[in-house]
């Protein structure tokens, strides 16, 4: 069976006055209807990988790939109009912080309805019904009230639920979650993960879960890719994380404290220049 997403030697470069910055340097992976975690520190290129798949890299970025295929569609050759139609409809993305990723002057309901009506010719009343149902699906209780609220009037957890509702309402087959819980309180993080878990499981969509939190990713995903300086340094099933071989991954794992242990000071990451080669 053909994979949902096939990425071969994907690169993202930013030409600047002082030289080219290579954010992503020839990474390859495939994704079926599974959960793939991409882990790495800031600047490792994990977010730019997600945005390149969405077609949302900044205007000055150069994207190259030997192959970038979504469900048999060559994304590198796809015209902008087709890529726009894919966005939201078949590939969706959840951003980090609902405080900034929701339009502050538009009610939550309108933003969800807008996402739906961009892809389906549904009437206003029906769109509202679908949006309310979606809000219920992300476990918002008082949906009629929340529908009419502005983003600043809801909590971070509520905002992120609205974000998920907005991105899933058109029924995408691939969801890219770019640090979806990093801006939230720890207690709320679990709620959001549970909701994501259920919705992804029910619809059977593919998920790319981008995070800097190795443990979170390994508990949530089937497979984990570890990125460092724009490259994949290790790829392994989440269950076998303990058997990671690359020193960077080992370092990430070792610097995590465990409850009940006495290690002072905790080891810090010792980055080696040869990893970036």
């Amino acid at each position, binding site marked *: 069976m053909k994979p949902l997403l096939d990425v071969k030697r994907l690169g993202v470069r930013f030409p600047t006055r002082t030289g080219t910055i290579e954010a992503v340097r020839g990474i390859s992976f495939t994704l079926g209807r599974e959960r793939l975690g991409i882990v790495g520190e800031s600047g490792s290129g994990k977010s730019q990988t997600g945005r390149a798949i*969405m077609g*949302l890299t900044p205007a000055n970025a150069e994207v190259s790939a030997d192959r970038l295929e979504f469900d048999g569609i060559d994304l590198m050759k796809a015209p902008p109009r087709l890529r*726009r*139609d*894919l*966005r*939201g*409809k078949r590939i*969706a*993305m959840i*951003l*980090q*912080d609902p405080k*900034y*990723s*929701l*339009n*502050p*002057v*538009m009610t939550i309901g309108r933003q969800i309805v*807008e*996402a739906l009506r*961009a*892809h389906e010719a549904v009437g206003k009343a029906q769109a509202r019904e679908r949006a309310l149902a979606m809000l219920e699906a992300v476990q918002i209780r*008082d949906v*009629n*009230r929340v529908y*009419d609220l*502005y983003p*600043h*009037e809801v909590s971070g957890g509520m905002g992120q639920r609205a*974000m998920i509702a*907005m*991105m899933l309402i*058109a029924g995408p087959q691939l969801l890219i979650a770019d640090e979806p819980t990093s801006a939230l309180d720890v207690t709320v993080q679990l709620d959001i993960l549970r909701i994501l878990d259920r919705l992804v499981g029910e619809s059977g969509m593919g998920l790319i879960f981008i995070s800097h939190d190795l443990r979170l990713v390994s508990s949530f995903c089937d497979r984990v890719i570890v990125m460092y300086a724009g490259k994949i340094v290790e790829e392994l099933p989440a269950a076998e994380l303990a058997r990671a071989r690359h020193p960077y991954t080992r370092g990430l794992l070792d610097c995590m404290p465990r409850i009940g242990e006495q290690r002072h000071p905790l080891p810090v990451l010792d980055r080696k220049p040869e990893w970036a080669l």
Partner: protein
Amino acid sequence: MSVSETRTGAGRRRAPASVYASAALRFLGVVVVTYLGLLAVTFFIGRVIPIDPVLAIVGDRAPASVIAQARKEYGLDLPLYEQFVLYVKNALTGNFGRSVLSTNPVMADIARVFPATIELATLGTIIGAAVGVPLGVLAAVKRGSLVDQIVRVIGLVGYSVPIFWLGLIALLVFYARLGWTEGPGRIGIAYEFTFTPITGFYLLDAVLQRDWGAFRDIFGHIILPAALLGYFSLAYISRMTRSFMLAELSQEYIVAARAKGLSESRIIWLHALRNAAVPLVTVIALSYAGLLEGSVLTETVFAWPGLGLYITNSLQNADMNAVLGGTIVIGSVFIGINLLSDALYRMLDPRTRTR
């Protein structure tokens, strides 16, 4: 305050009446304090400048007895604080005394010239915003491109070329050479004596009387100075629009809007501009307020009988009643416009509504 209670109701919640009442009270307090400040400043200026108001009225050859009597009549022999109270009372009733120059009550003079300025400033601002905002949006979206450069140059020229020079050139080209527009003044000689102003806004008056000939003539007169003022405010409005739009377009919610698959035009005009409109309203309102002061140079070049020309003439003739009256009217307009833009700000940005 039971704001949270009212929120639990279905649908859009409403704030209780007490919230509105306290907001209105605060609003009123701001108006009163600002207005008193304005009066205090104008009063102070009127007293410290080396112009004797009495002398200006009775002339420098009047005998001492007449001067003393006039001094008494105008309350100038009273202690300063009583004078101020009198001044405030007069200002509130719109009684600024008579103009030395025209011998009319200052208020009547202002009622005559101010509509001319308002009409010009309004049309100018409409032109400035209607052209400036789209240009600014375009420049922001096509940042760094030729379009951006062209908009930059258009703005720079509007901002730096003296407006009286542009006015003269415009008159020369569009009136004298091409004959596309009418010349200086508000209305042509053919209509001057048959046209009866009702509101003082000539365009509106012509519409009210269905006098389309006069309308065309008046429009021909106003379009050149209005376009000029519009160009001047366009320069500023387009620059500000560009920078507000750039700030909005780099926000995360724009990425989210793209991720939803929205069209670029919807993202720019509905999402980004709607957010940029919040600060933009203040910019446009202040530029409008600036034009309402009366643009002396434009009014001079186009022989436009407006407030700027009136105050300048009064100033040159030491007609202090007229100057102070005009200053207070302009100040009041400024306060009013500021409050209006505040209210609009609140309307446009939901974050400023709930407290």
